[in-house]
C-alpha cells in the first residue's frame, strides 16, 4: 500500500468513518434530499399543471431559491437545525425540488392533447388519468430531472465540509490540508465523481427499463405520420 496511492484508503480517525462508511454517509446526505424533493415535487407539479396560473410564480420562487449559494444556505440554516446532517440535506432537497418541478410539469404537459382527450372519453377520472397516463408518459422527463438533481446533489454535499464536517467525502479535502496528505483530496474528488457517474448510470438504466415504449434516440417517428398500408413490418429499434 505504499506506492503513489499510499494511504489512499487510509482515512484519518477524526473523521469517525471508514472509507465505505464515508461513502454510505455521502450517498445518504445526497440521495435522501433528492427523494424528498421528488416527493414534494410530484404534488406541487400536479398543482401547477392543473392551475396554470400557479406555475409562473412557483417557477419564479424556485429560481430565486436556486440562485442562493449553497454555503449561504447552510449558514442561514444553522440557527434552525444546529450542527446536524439536516443542515446539509434541507438545501439539497430544495435544489432538487427546483430542478424537478419544471421537469415534471414539462413532462406531464408533453402528453399529446389527443391522448388526454381519448383517456377522458374512455371514462378515466382525473386521478386515474394522472397516475395511469400522464405520469407514465412523463417518466423520461422526470428521470432527466432526477439525473441533474442527483449529480449536483452528490457534488454539493462536499460543500458541507466547510460548515463543520458535514461534507462526508468532502471532509477528506479538509483532512488533506490538515495532515498534508494530498492523496486524500484526490480520493475525495475521484470517489465523488465515481459515485455521481454510477448513480447517473443507474438512473439511465431505470429509465430504459421503465420505458420500453420509447423510440430509440434519433429514430423518433412523428406519431401522426401516415405510412402507406400495409406498412412494412417495422423492426423494433432497440
Amino acid at each position, binding site marked *: 500500500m505504499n506506492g503513489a496511492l499510499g494511504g489512499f484508503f487510509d482515512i484519518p480517525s477524526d473523521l469517525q468513518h471508514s472509507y465505505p462508511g464515508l461513502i454510505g454517509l455521502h450517498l445518504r446526505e445526497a440521495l435522501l434530499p433528492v427523494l424528498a424533493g421528488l416527493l414534494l415535487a410530484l404534488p406541487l407539479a400536479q398543482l401547477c399543471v392543473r392551475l396554470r396560473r400557479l406555475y409562473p410564480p412557483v417557477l419564479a420562487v424556485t429560481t430565486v431559491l436556486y440562485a442562493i449559494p449553497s454555503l449561504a444556505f447552510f449558514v442561514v440554516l444553522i440557527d434552525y437545525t444546529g450542527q446536524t446532517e439536516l443542515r446539509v440535506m434541507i438545501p439539497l432537497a430544495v435544489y432538487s425540488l427546483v430542478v424537478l418541478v419544471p421537469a415534471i410539469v414539462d413532462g406531464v404537459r408533453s402528453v*399529446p392533447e*389527443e*391522448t388526454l*382527450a*381519448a*383517456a*377522458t*372519453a*374512455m*371514462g*378515466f*377520472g382525473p386521478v386515474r388519468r394522472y397516475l395511469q*397516463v400522464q405520469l*407514465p*408518459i412523463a*417518466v423520461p422527463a422526470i428521470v432527466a430531472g432526477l439525473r441533474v438533481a442527483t449529480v449536483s446533489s452528490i457534488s454539493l454535499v462536499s460543500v458541507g465540509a466547510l460548515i463543520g464536517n458535514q461534507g462526508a467525502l468532502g471532509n477528506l479535502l479538509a483532512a488533506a490540508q490538515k495532515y498534508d496528505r494530498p492523496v486524500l483530496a484526490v480520493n475525495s474528488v475521484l470517489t465523488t465523481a465515481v459515485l455521481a457517474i454510477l448513480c447517473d448510470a443507474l438512473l439511465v438504466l431505470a429509465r430504459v427499463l421503465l*420505458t*420500453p*415504449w*420509447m*423510440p430509440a434516440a434519433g429514430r*423518433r*417517428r412523428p*406519431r*401522426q*405520420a*401516415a*405510412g*402507406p*398500408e400495409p*406498412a412494412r*413490418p*417495422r423492426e*423494433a*429499434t432497440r
Partner: protein
Amino acid sequence: MIRIEEVTKRYPDGTVAVDRLCLEIPDRAITVLVGPSGCGKTTTLRMINRMVEPSEGAIYLDGADIRRRPVTALRRSMGYVIQNAGLFQHRTILDNIATVPRMLGWGKRRARERAAELMERVGLDASLAGRYPYQLSGGQQQRVGVARALAADPPVLLMDEPFSAVDPVVRKGLQDELLRIQDELGKTIVFVTHDIDEAIKLGTRVAVLRTGGRLAQFAPPAELLSDPADSFVEDFLGADRGIRRLSFFPSDGLELTTDPVVRAGATAERTGGFGAPYLLVTDAQGRPLGWSRPQDLAAGGADPGRLLPYGRPFVPGTDSLRAALDCAVLSPTGWAVAVDSGGRVTGVVSQQTIGEAIRGAHAGERAAGEVAR
C-alpha cells in the same frame, strides 16, 4: 336513439360553437356531421359524451337525459375515436385495446382475449399485439383506435375525423373497413368529418352544419345531392354533385349488347357485318383484351399489342351508374365494358344508352317523390 334538443353551446369567451341544434340520431346507422372548420362538429360530438356540457338544451339517450347517468359510465358505453388515434404511447397495442374492458373490471385474460379478437376484426395482424404505438404506421394506429373504441362492445361509437390524418389510399381502406364492421355490428355511429365525399360515402344520414353551429340540412346523402336545402349546402357539396349523385343509381337496369364482342381468333365473317365501328376482343375465357376496328381485326387478327385499351370495366348490379358512366367516358371508343364478378364480359353499353338510363332514373325518382308527397 340519441336526441339532441335545442342545444346551444357558448364557450366562456363568448364563442357560440353550436346554436339551437336539433338532431335525431337513429340507432344502428351512421350519422355524419359535416361542415367547414370551426362549425361546431367536435363540440357537438363531445356534448354527446359530456366532455363538453351544453349551455342550453338537453341530449337524450334512449329517452333519458344523459345528465342523469354517472359521467364515467356514460363514457364507457360510448366508444370514441379521434384523429391520430390518441393511443397510449406507453402501452402495447393489446393493452391499448384492452383499456376499457380492464376499467370495467374484466379479468386480465378475458380482456386480452377480447383485444386479440378485435385486432382480427379491424384487420390488424396478431403479430402487432406486443408492439408499441410508435412502431405502427398511421393507418395501423387508426385501426387500433377503432378496435379500442369497440373493445367493451358499446352500443354507440363517436368518431371525430378519425381518418383525416392518413393518405387517401389508406383512408379509403379504413372507410371500407368501417362499413364492413358496421354491417356486422350495427352500432349507432356519429361520425364527424369535413370531407363531404367521406360523408356521402359513409353516412346513412348526413347533417350539414354551417359556421356558427347552425344546422343547414339533415338528410340521406342521395337527397342532399338531389335537393340541397340552400346555396350554402350546394356550394359545400361541390361542383360535380350531378355526377356524384349517380353513385346512388344502380347500373343493373342498363341494356347491354353482346353484338360487338368477339373472341380472339374468330373468323373473318364473325367479325364483320355488325355495322359497329369497334369490336371488343376477348380471350378464350371471355375476359376483355381490348377494342379493335373490324378491318384491322380482319387484316391482322387480334394482336394484343395493337388493341385499344378498354378502360376499367364495371359490374352491373354491384357498381352504380356513376361507375358505368365513368367507364364509358374513359373508354377511347365511348363504350363501357360490363363484366361479371369473375371478370368475364357480359356485354357493352354506349354513352348514349347510359345517358338515357340516367334520364330514366331521374324521372323515376321524381315520380317516386310525387307519390311520397
